[in-house]
């Protein structure tokens, strides 16, 4: 598989993602510059965390209009897997590739700490190998991670099983005190209707090795490999 990690000016988790994919997962990885017009030859795209274009105006708002985004949109519409992590999630919502938006944390502060999330749907390209109810530990590091969507959007998300991750405690209980940023319905990640585009606030690349407190994040990348392999198999 060939992965692409999109590099916007101000991305700062791009090299971390490349390390996790290349050195830990043994994948081939290309950096995709924000001015590229094509993502041909790539099988999976990752939009990493950071402060693209300084997050001036609104987190992810300027990146959503970057030249590379039209190629990403085509890639997503072709049903190919796209993962947005943190700022990448914010960019995907700003680009309307995912529903909803991410607002300032409830306490209005940046927060960097480990959290737990529960897998709510195995029906996406990035959770295909994760049974529903699986609890993953990964860190968050954001100031704008409060998920919001209209009532209609939320109902549609819930009905279609497109809420992918919810913040929970270590045992998998979705409790108010386990919600680090005031996200509505404890939503930590969502998917598009086809399940090939997924965004989440926690950082799987920061939880891909035993030395880093958790290696649960690997399972998200492994899911992408599993779903791509399944797709490649002749029916």
């Amino acid at each position, binding site marked *: 598989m060939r992965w692409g990690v999109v590099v916007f*000016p*101000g991305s700062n988790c791009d090299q971390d993602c490349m390390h996790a994919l290349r050195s830990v997962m043994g994948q081939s990885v290309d950096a995709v510059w924000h001015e590229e017009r094509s993502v041909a030859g790539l099988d999976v795209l990752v939009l990493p965390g950071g*402060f693209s274009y300084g997050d001036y105006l609104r987190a992810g708002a300027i990146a959503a209009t970057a030249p590379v985004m039209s190629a990403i949109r085509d890639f997503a519409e072709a049903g190919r897997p796209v993962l947005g992590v943190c700022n990448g999630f914010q960019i995907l919502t700003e680009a309307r590739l995912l529903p909803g938006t991410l607002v300032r944390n409830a306490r209005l502060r*940046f927060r*960097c*700490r480990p959290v737990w999330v529960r897998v709510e749907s195995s029906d996406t390209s990035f959770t295909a190998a994760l049974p529903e109810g699986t609890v993953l530990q990964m860190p968050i*590091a954001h100031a704008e991670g409060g998920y919001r969507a209209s009532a209609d959007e939320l109902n549609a998300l819930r009905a279609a099983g497109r809420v992918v991750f919810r913040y929970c405690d270590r045992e998998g209980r979705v409790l108010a005190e386990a919600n680090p940023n005031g996200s509505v319905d404890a939503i930590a990640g969502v998917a598009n209707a086809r399940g090939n585009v997924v965004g989440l606030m926690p950082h799987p*690349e920061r939880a891909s090795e035993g*030395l*880093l407190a958790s290696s649960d994040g690997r399972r998200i990348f492994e899911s992408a490999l599993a779903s791509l392999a399944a797709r490649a198999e002749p029916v």
Partner: protein
Amino acid sequence: MRTLAPEGTATVRTGLPAGDEHEIVRRLGRHPNMVEARMFGVMWSEHCGYKHSRHTLRRLPSGSPRVLSGPGGNAGVVSIGAGWAVAFKMESHNHPSAVDPYNGAATGVGGIIRDVLAMGARPIALLDSLRFGPLDDRRSRQLAGGVVAGIAGYGNAIGVPTVGGELLVDACYRDNPLVNVACLGLVRADRVATAAAQGVGNAVLYAGARTGRDGIGGAAFASTELDESRERTDRASVQIGDPFTGKLLIEATLEALESGAIVAIQDMGAGGITCAASEMAARGGVGMAIDLDRVPLREAHMRPEEILLSESQERMLLVLRSDDAPRVAGIYRRWGLSAEVIGHVTAEPRLVATLAGQIVADLPPDALADAPAYVPEPRRPRVLNGEERRPTARAAVDPLDALLRMLRHPDIASKREIFEQYDHMVGIRTVTVPGADAAVLRVLEAPPLGLALAADGNARWCAGDPRRGAALIVMEAAANLACVGAEPLAVTDCLNFGSPERPEVFWTFREAVDGIADACRSLGVPVIGGNVSFYNEAAAAGNGSAAAEGARDPARAIHPTPIIGMVGLVEDVSRPTRSGFLNEGDLIVLIGSGSGSLGASLHDVLIEGNIGGPPADPALGDTTRAIQLVCRAVRARLVRSAHDVSDGGLAVALAEACIMGGIGASVTLPSATQDHSGPPAPLDWFGEGPGLFLVSLPAEGLPALEALAAEHGVPCGAIGTVGGASLSVLASAPTGVDSFTVEVRVLRQAWDSLEF
């Protein structure tokens, strides 16, 4: 030949003392013109020129076989082996942070990152050492909140993790908050960049953000006492940071350095173009011709001295072959930054700046870059703080009550509310997150090597005795590193003091430097760079003049506050040791020969209300041996946890090991009667002293630890066991402590109560 315009005259003033002005005229053989006078005013400020500290700083040891670049460069560099090296430097941003906490702190982070970048290193970690007035004071809370937000705002966005640091409060910092930030960078040992301009005809390339009118004269501002009445006008001296541009500057500069085309590089921080150009030229023994018309500007009609002295952030100055200039400029432009050739290197050692065809300044670079050095007369204060009010008898206190009060104190309490505002994980190198004795980072490029970082300071100790205090701080930093199995590689220091022109302040400064030198020599660790911040004494509102000197309230000057940043090498990062107790049934062993002292302790300041005597004797030989023992024991995995005894003494260390481990302990306090084979004694429950460690290990491991301790000549002995949900202390005479039991949950509640 064009001539200098306007010419210098005897009426032009630099803002410097008369002695400096005479020296300038002597060096130039003429009077400076107005532009030149402003350049001297900044370059010969204390902040840039180190006029009152340079001579004394020579007392610090700066060499070791690992040092690739010592003091005097943008940052010191030491080899870590496997072909890699680290650049390390700490700097203060005290004055700007007092006036504009958010931007002052943010640009402090930006500045130190660029110093490390200028060595060719990728910045991989930040540490912050902060001092404020008591946090129940509204102004201090606001300052603290703004400073933390500024560090977070800049550090998080630029993608360099803030992995550790410290925060202490004292009334002396109410009007003089301290913001010291250290940065660590990683560079291939054979690719360390230099800042010496070379090659006549080589191009001088300006790269980064455009130049504006912000921060003009910032270095000169940092070299005077703060005056509340001038807060509004001083604001123009504070630079505004832009972490987004800073991030682009890091990536573009590393790419430019990777091209192999860069002859020399320096960041434009304090003193702007003037400082970078004069220092680079002076180091190379060459001159530079700078065409100010080519400098990318943010606004029109800037005056020559504004362009020359602007401290606009996120800018670098590079020297490279003219042929390479378009290619390197292209790298910066691809990252969306300005890049213009603004001059060239000349053979004659003159820094010549032109604007609109006129020469506006023409100075020998070394005349600017080498400010005169002064050695003030030191005078020991009649009474040291520690000698003022020596308590005759300490009041009887309930030990548990005192312990809980200490755990609630901001100096001891968990700083979670602060470090969770910092991205301490970006870069995926952080193996040990903030809150432990030292931060540990893995070297992704050379596994299984790791780097440990500690920042320490303790002004109580230094107020009690500056030489002992400073030595104790260095030992504490080394002890913190030992707890994670790291051998010290290098020290960077930030020396925060009042006005050096006061003989008593200068004496404490010199004593502190000697204390650092003593301890570094004992440990065999070099000081590879740092920063001096004088004039940390807020002038009483409304009278900032020298005439008010005698009337100044001494309480408005800070305690002597040297901060030590230390980096150490971890040989194998794959199994980090913890600070907290781990396993039910493990033995708790006290290591070390220090006995601890209540003098200058947190206990005496908090419970007795004064510093009450000098701190413990640093006992450098014994302490060094104890530190080396712990480092070896951790590396050999003889212990499961290791934590050093520091602020609050054994009492706080035990409580912290329980809280961090989430498990209880039962200990019997050692009494004075035990012999040398047992635990060190006598021991004050709250006494603070060097070279004492709490470790835990399985009982069967004790003989191996004892054998290693005997080999090092360091006492050690079991004082209890790990287990249960409470800390039980059984006291034996004559420690003066009553026995008690307290649930770890209660300890944690007190420790985790800092609201920020």
